C-alpha cells in the first residue's frame, strides 16, 4: 500500500512538472529572447547566454510605456468592478428569482458574444463618438464591458443557482432584504466564483486589442497591447523582436502579481461550513 502511495505522489509531481513546462516554456523563451539582441534572435538558445537589459530600457524610453501600463490597469480595474457589481445584481435576479422569459433574457445577454468583434466595431465607434468618449479611457471601459458582462453574468448566475435554498430562506426569516442577501449572504459564499470571474474578466480587459486600437489615438491614452503592437524597428518591415518580448514580459508581471495576491481567495472553501452553520 505504501509503495503505491509513493508512486502516486511521484506521478502527481510529474504531472505538476509537465504542466509547468507546458505553460511556462514559451514564456521562458520570451524572457530569454528579451535579453538577446539583433541577429541573435534568428538562432535558437535554451539558456540565457547574455544579460543585456537594453531591450527593457528601450521599451520604457521610446514611449510612455509606464503610462500605458497605468492606463491598462485603470481600464481593467474599472471594467472588473463594474462588471462584478452589475452582474452580481443581475445574477441574483436571474439565478434566484423565477420569472417568465428568464431563459430568453439569459440568451439575449449571451448573444452579444456571438457576433465577431470586428462586426460590432464600427457601430460602437459611432456610439463612442456620439457620447464624446473618443480617445478617452471611459470610452474603453464602456466598450470592454460588452466583452466581459455576458461572461460574468452567466458564470455568476450559474454559481448562484447552485447555492442551497435553505440559506436564502433562513436569511429572509431573519429579516434580510434582497440587498443584504446579495452582499452579506451570497457574496461571501461565492468567494471563489467571484474572484475567479473577476480575475478572468480582468485579463480579458487587460488583453483587449481591437477596441483599444480603434477608440484611442494619442500615445498617452493607449493601453499596453496596442503600445506593443505599435512598436517597430527602423523600418516598417522590421519587427523589433527583442523589444516586443521585453514588453510582453513586463505586461505579464502585473497579472502574475494579481494572481498571487488573489489566489488564496480562489480556494477559500467557505461553502461546506456555511451550509452546516
Amino acid at each position, binding site marked *: 500500500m505504501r509503495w503505491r502511495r509513493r508512486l502516486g505522489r511521484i506521478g502527481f509531481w510529474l504531472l505538476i512538472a509537465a504542466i509547468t513546462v507546458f505553460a511556462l516554456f514559451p514564456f521562458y523563451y520570451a524572457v530569454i529572447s528579451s535579453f538577446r*539582441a*539583433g*541577429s*541573435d*534572435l*534568428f*538562432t535558437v538558445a535554451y539558456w540565457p547566454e547574455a544579460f543585456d537589459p537594453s531591450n527593457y530600457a528601450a521599451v520604457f524610453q*521610446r*514611449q510612455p510605456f509606464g503610462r500605458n501600463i497605468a492606463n491598462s490597469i485603470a481600464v481593467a480595474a474599472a471594467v472588473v468592478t463594474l462588471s462584478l457589481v452589475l452582474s452580481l445584481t443581475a445574477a441574483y435576479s436571474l439565478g434566484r428569482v423565477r420569472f417568465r422569459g428568464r431563459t430568453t433574457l439569459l440568451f439575449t445577454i449571451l448573444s452579444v458574444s456571438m457576433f465577431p468583434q470586428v462586426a460590432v*466595431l*464600427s457601430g460602437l*465607434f*459611432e456610439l463612442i*463618438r456620439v457620447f464624446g468618449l*473618443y*480617445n478617452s479611457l471611459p470610452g474603453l471601459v464602456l466598450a470592454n464591458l460588452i466583452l466581459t458582462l455576458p461572461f460574468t453574468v452567466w458564470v455568476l448566475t450559474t454559481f448562484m443557482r447552485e447555492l442551497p435554498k435553505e440559506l436564502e430562506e433562513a436569511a429572509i426569516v431573519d429579516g434580510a432584504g434582497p440587498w443584504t442577501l446579495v452582499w452579506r449572504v451570497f457574496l461571501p459564499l461565492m468567494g471563489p466564483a467571484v474572484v475567479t470571474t473577476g480575475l478572468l474578466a480582468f485579463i480579458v480587459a487587460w488583453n483587449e486589442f481591437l477596441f483599444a*486600437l*480603434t477608440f484611442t*489615438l*494619442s*500615445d498617452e491614452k493607449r493601453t499596453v497591447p496596442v503600445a506593443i*503592437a*505599435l*512598436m*517597430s*524597428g*527602423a*523600418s*516598417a*518591415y*522590421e*519587427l*523589433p523582436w527583442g523589444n516586443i518580448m521585453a514588453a510582453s514580459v513586463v505586461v505579464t508581471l502585473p497579472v502574475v502579481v494579481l494572481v498571487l495576491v488573489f489566489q488564496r481567495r480562489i480556494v477559500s472553501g467557505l461553502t461546506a461550513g456555511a451550509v452546516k452553520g
Partner: protein
Amino acid sequence: MRSIVAFACALMTSALLVTAPRAAEISLSCSALGLEHEICRAGADRWAQQSGHTVTLVSTPNSATERLALYQQLLAAGAGDIDVLQIDVVWPGLLGAHFIDLTPYAEGAASGQFETMIEANTIDGRLVAMPWFADAGVLYARQDLLDAYGREMPQTWQELSETAQYVQEREREAGNDDFWGYVWQGRAYEGLTTNAIEWIASHGGGTIVDQAGEITVSNEAAAQALGKAAGWVGTISPPGVLNYAEEEARGVFQSGNALFMRNWPYAWALAQADDSPIRGKVSIAPLPRGGEDGRHAAALGGQSLAVSRYSQHPQIAADLVIFLTSQEEQKRRAIEGSFNPTLPALYDDDEILASASFIGELSDVFANAVARPAAATGQDYSRVSNAFFNAVHGILSGEQEPGAGLQSLERELTRIKRRGWTQ
C-alpha cells in the same frame, strides 16, 4: 428684431474669424516608433518652425493591414482627427475619395517624381497623395559564396535556380544542412502579390490587370513564370517559404543560411549591422529577368502623404505635405535614414551616395519598377490582390497546375469585376 439677431450673428462670426488661432495644430500619422519616427519628427519640427504652426504625431500600427483598417474606420466616420496620413502606394484607389486633390498645391512638384509613383497616386485625374519614399523588390546575394564557387550574379531566373541549386548542394556537402538557395515571401498576403507580380512581369506576362482595367492574368508567360516558382519550393527554397513574410525570410538569410533572398531595401542596413553574421558579405542587384527576352521587374512599394478631406485646415496640411515631400527633405531622409527618394534627381546626389551607397544601385530598379494594378482596379484592389495571392499560393503548394489555376483566377476576377471595377 431680426436685423439685430443677424447683426449679432455677423458680429459673432467675425469675432470667431478674428480670434481663430492663426497657428493651426496639424496632426500627422507617420510610422510609430524607432528611427523612422525620429526622422519624421525632425522633418515636422522644421516645418513647424518655418510656418509657425504646430504638428502632433499620431502613431499608427506598424502592420499595413491594421493601419489600413484604422484609417478606414476613421475616414468612414468622417473624423478629422488625423490631417495628414501616411499611406501605402496601393491605397489611393481604396481611400482616394477621402483625400483632397493636391494638384493646386503641388505647383509642378509632381513633375520631378518617378512617373510610376505619380501614376499610382492619381485617381480619376486627382493627385490624392504625394510620394514620400520609394520601395522596390531587390535581390540580395551572398557575394562571398558566389566568389568562392566562381559564380556570377544571376541575370535570369534560370541562372538563379542553377546557381542556387549548385551552391546549395556544395554547402550541404560541406556540412551546412540548413542551407538553402533562395528565400522569398510566399505567405498568403499582400507580399506574395508583389513577389508573384515580379515573376510574371519579368516574363512579360503583364500585371494581372492592365492600366485600362482589362484582366490579363491568364497567359502563357504567367503560367511559365509561376510554374518555375512552384519548382523552387522544396528544392532551392525551404517548404516553409509558403508562410514566410519579410522578416521570416530575412531571418534565414541573415543567419547565413541562404544564398539569395528577395526583399525590400530595408534588409540592407540590417544585414550590414555590426551584430550581423553576414556583415560585409552581401551584395544587392536587380531581380532577374524572365529569360533572354524578359525584363528586370521590381514591384513598386513605397509610402505617400495624403490630406484628409475632413481636416479642419486642409491648406495648411497640404503645405506640410509639400514640405515633407520636397527635394531638400527627401535628401535629408535619405542621408539620415536611407529612405529611398521618389525624385530621380537625387539618385546621383554625391552626399546621398556617400552615406548610403546602395541607393545609387537602386535608381535603375525604380526606373523599371512595375506597379501593382491598384489604380486600375480602384476599390476592388484588395479583392483582386486577395484572389491573386490565394491562387498563386495554391499553385506554389502544388494544389493546382499553373495553367488551370490562372484560368480559374481569371474567372474569379471576371466575377469580381462584373460590369466594371468599383471606383
